[in-house]
């Protein structure tokens, strides 16, 4: 596919992502850290995030499946998820985590389960968007173009 077309798609996708606050300015900061000395930085960080998030989500669903829910443990997991999503700029995931935590404090099992579902949704949303973004980047670079930077 033509480079310009790819680039346009990249710009559109980026614009949508930022508009819908799927990712925020923290992600932009990370993008700026990637350069010749660390060309795969974003890829590394994003994969790390996926790994950690999926692990945490598994743990969370296991914990909430129990008869007697250990809310402290759930809270700890959500806290970690919040931290990692904030650090790569996954804004919506982070926001749901914040609400999730208040349910944990109230020991509200149903609320927690609901929030877990929401977190799952948001996570998969950000995951698919990031994967698309990274794929587009690769394609652009492969066809010899340069990644358009957004301000």
């Amino acid at each position, binding site marked *: 596919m033509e480079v310009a077309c790819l680039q346009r798609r990249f710009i559109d996708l980026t614009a949508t992502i930022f508009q819908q606050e799927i990712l925020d300015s923290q992600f932009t900061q990370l993008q700026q850290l990637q350069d010749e000395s*660390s060309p795969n930085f974003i890829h590394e960080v994003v994969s790390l995030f996926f790994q950690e998030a999926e692990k945490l989500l598994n743990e969370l669903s296991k914990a909430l499946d129990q008869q007697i829910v250990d809310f402290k443990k759930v809270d700890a997991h959500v806290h970690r998820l919040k931290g990692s999503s904030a650090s*790569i700029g996954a804004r919506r995931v982070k926001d749901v985590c914040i609400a999730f935590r208040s349910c944990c404090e109230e020991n509200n099992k149903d609320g927690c389960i609901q929030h877990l579902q929401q977190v799952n949704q948001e996570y998969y949303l950000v995951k698919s968007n990031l994967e698309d973004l990274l794929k587009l980047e690769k394609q652009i670079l492969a066809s010899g173009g340069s990644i358009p930077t957004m301000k």
Partner: protein
Amino acid sequence: MMDVVLSLLSLMIIGVIVGSFVVLQLLNRSLIQEAFLRASLIKQKEAIQQAERKSMNKSLAFASASHDVRTSLAGITGLVELCRLDATPNSKLDRHLEQMNTCASQLLGIVNSVLDTSKVEAGKMQLEEIEFDMAQVLEESVDIFHVVALKKGLEVIWDPCDCSVLKCSNVKGDCRRLKQILDNLLGNAVKFTSEGHVVVRAWAKKPSLENFKLPSKHEIRFRSILSHLSRCLWKDEDHYANMDILNPIQRDLDSIEFIFEVDDTGKGIPKEKRASVFENYVQVKEQTTRGHEGTGLGLGIVESYVRLMGGEISIKEKEPGEKGTCFRFNIFLKSSDTSLDSEENINSPLHPRNMSVIDPQLAKKNMTVQSKIRAMTFKRGLQMEGIHSLLLVQGETKEIMQRWMESLGVKVWAIDHYKLLYPSLEKIKNSLCAFAKPDSVSRGISFARTTSFNYNKEHEECSSSRYVANRNLPLTTKELLKKPSFSGPSTCILIIIDLSSGNMSEIYSMLKNFNSSIHNIQCKIVWLASSNTPAADLSSSNQEKCDLILQKPLHGSRLYDLLKLLQEFGGTSEDDQQGIQIMNTTQEPQQSSELGSSMDNKNFLSNSFGSQSSQHIYKTSGLRYGMDGDRPLSGMNILLVEDAFVLSVIAKNILLKLGATIEYAENGLDAVELVTKALQEASDKHNGATQPEGDLKHLPYDIILMDCEMPIMNGYEATRKIREEEKYYGLHIPIIALTAHATPEEARKSILAGMDFHLMKPLKINELLEAINNAYQN
């Protein structure tokens, strides 16, 4: 008898009939008139309604048009951005594109402001409060008009006067409106001036105790009694509020008064029109408006804005014989300069105080820290005596440069023509050597100081001091041939030459000859380029000995660069080590000017917008390991304590990029172990010799970044333990807490535990640098 009665009766009846007929007619007429009146009333009402509808439609149409205008502007901005991607950074193209960008955003501001005018008229205007850099705002506005005025052959420049604005440049206020005020005044000035110059002057005054009288107890009581009375009598809340309004500014001890003058040499405004100029909301029409149209805001709006900011605007009387107009206004803004005090910068010889400045990339993100550092540099001034400066510049720039340098204590020599360059250089050299060796005075060189030194720092109107031209002084070949070798104290000469001064090759050869003849004197050369300097001149000047190339107009950030260059002379600093470094690096400029001659190499300090996006060539540093442009933290050893893996990877990457070396601990317990071990090792090395407290050289880590919430042992606990350990060695490692929340409770917890500073997660580069800066200033 009966006939008389009959005839009377009939007469009466006839009279009545006639009368009623007449009355009926009159009634008829009035009815018709009423009908007419009613009809015309209805018509009038309709006309009014139509007029109102028209105006509604006008504003609606304008609103929708403004949407389109905004869309188009956004389109332009986007396209300019795309173009900038292809332009090589810091090339002429890039600079022009950046200016285009600024113009587009200014246009956007205009559209918004016209919508604002209605708000102003309704009295509902709210001023914004954002932090901004006054020096940068002034510089940006003046730069834009400089380019515009260049076409007319005018010089537009900002005179820093006593540099007070540069010293307290960080303020909080309504940046946009201030820009509109400046742009409007500057626009008018440029429009109405066909030759000469436009100068913007600015001072900052901290409100002194004389300016506002602290009310004595009696006054307070009186005022409160009055307000109580007014409340009882008038039952009017507003009245009470009015009393408060009387002293809003005086209550705010944090506020600074900024006084501005926009002075031009144009047509002038006759006395009788001066009042009306502010009253009309319509801009004063000018038949021949070429080029820049002005912001569309009348001076009336300018006046309203100025008044809202607590000040007043007026037209100042000029000296008789000087033409043009001078607008003068003052505003009050809150200072946000609280973290840098003059006492703080003295006691840190080896600390990386200056690091944030040199990095070009981060500087863009790091504006407030940078401008604070700039303010500090201006406050520091020059410690060195005996610097001479030779100016080969024209016009207002010369006057301003001269005043500024003289206020710094530099002896200034100004010449008009490049042919006088060599002889005046010789003269300076001789004067220096005459200084060094008393017996050489007997050579009988008598030369009048060619400049009239204006040592009064009070701002005056441009002094019409005529410079006694060098041409009149006796130039004997004897003087030129005598090349004394002396071993006096090293002094310095700074030569500033405008690239449009004339025959560049002659100038180069003169400079070469001069250079070969001086031994102990340090000589630095600064070239002034402007937007219309031919590229050939620029590249050739690069190849010659060159320490700095600055863009005209010479103000703001370029003054800062110049000041730093001056400060380099003879190692002006509080630290001998630094001085030694500088002495050794005087050779560097020679080298770097040979490296690469392309336009966007490191030497070229362009960027008329004040952001330090190009690298500086002088690599003198405040850091013991010598600094690289990109790596302000190079040489620092940082301990990162963070449990979340993703965060740690990101933080590690950031720190590595900034040039630091990193050690990592996963939780508080590991961190304490690492620190304890390191402290022990360090003390073993020095065999228990008592170290002075806080001596950097022996800190195992320069900074510890400590996450607060971790398993096994959290950040607070770990910090407490580390502080206990440190007591044995009398050390204090700066610890910066990383928290997920920024509540005051968290802040308190971190301070109680012994941390020095706290940052919010996720880690942001500029915040990190600022925190490290602050940590090292204490």
